[in-house]
């Protein structure tokens, strides 16, 4: 009986098809892992940004003389006469903080919706939706509610 010295075409094709399927699966797995990693990174950045926005806004409100809402913007008038405004730029989907002598370097946040209310006892409330959009299908958003005690709030003991 003579020995075979190679593979038949069917065997070769079957092996090639199997290898292609496996390679495709691993490439897909790699792409999904990278996309997932990017999503997690965006999510962490979004959390950082939301804390930063809360801190900056609360600090502004705590130093305020008066706080009002005008044309959907939060207007904070300081005791020294300067004004800080938080307003949504709908074209660029950004919440901007404008101040004459701003010490905050990057004074905007990726935001699609912002609604402000100021109650009669001075409590300022912001309801926002922050988001980040990466490449491809990478996207994340988070609802953010910020409350800050305005000029009349001073119940915390010093």
């Amino acid at each position: 009986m003579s020995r075979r010295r190679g593979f038949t075409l069917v065997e070769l094709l079957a092996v090639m098809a199997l290898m292609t399927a496996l390679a495709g699966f691993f490439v897909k797995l790699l792409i999904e892992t990278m996309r997932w990693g990017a999503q997690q990174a965006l999510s962490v950045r979004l959390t950082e940004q939301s804390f930063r926005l809360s801190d900056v806004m609360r600090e502004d409100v705590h130093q305020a003389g008066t706080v009002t809402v005008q044309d959907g913007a939060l207007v904070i008038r300081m005791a020294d006469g300067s004004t800080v405004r938080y307003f949504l730029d709908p074209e660029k989907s950004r919440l901007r903080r404008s101040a004459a002598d701003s010490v905050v370097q990057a004074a905007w946040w990726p935001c699609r919706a912002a609604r402000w209310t100021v109650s009669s006892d001075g409590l300022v409330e912001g309801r926002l939706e922050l988001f980040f959009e990466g490449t491809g299908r990478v996207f994340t958003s988070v609802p953010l509610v910020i409350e800050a005690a305005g000029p009349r709030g001073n119940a915390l003991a010093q």
Partner: protein
Amino acid sequence: MRRGILMMEAMVGLAVLSFILASSVIFAAVVSRSNLEVRREAAAVQALSNLAERIRARPEIVPSPGGMTAVELPIEIAERYPGLTLQMSAREFPDRPDLRRVRLAANLKNDVGGDRQTVVDLIVRVEAKKP
């Protein structure tokens, strides 16, 4: 001379491959869950900060000493982070009737690792009770 691979060899190869794949999927799930937990913790801290600000503006919402009050979360936060609840309790200072020691607690219900609690203590000035 051998002309192929044994069934046993093929099965061992497949088992090793499956083990590697399953390990990566489990690893991804664990990391994803821990990331979700971090976000829930961050939401709990935000909710506690908001409650502290609310108390600063409205000290009348502080419960009477010894009492504990459940605090309602904004609807969008409650929907986004199910299992997150807030509570507030107060204690008196013996010699300062105008002050309360207020404890704010954010409870996170966790399916796997058990429940977790983040606590903030505040000292709040309230209206002194008239004799």
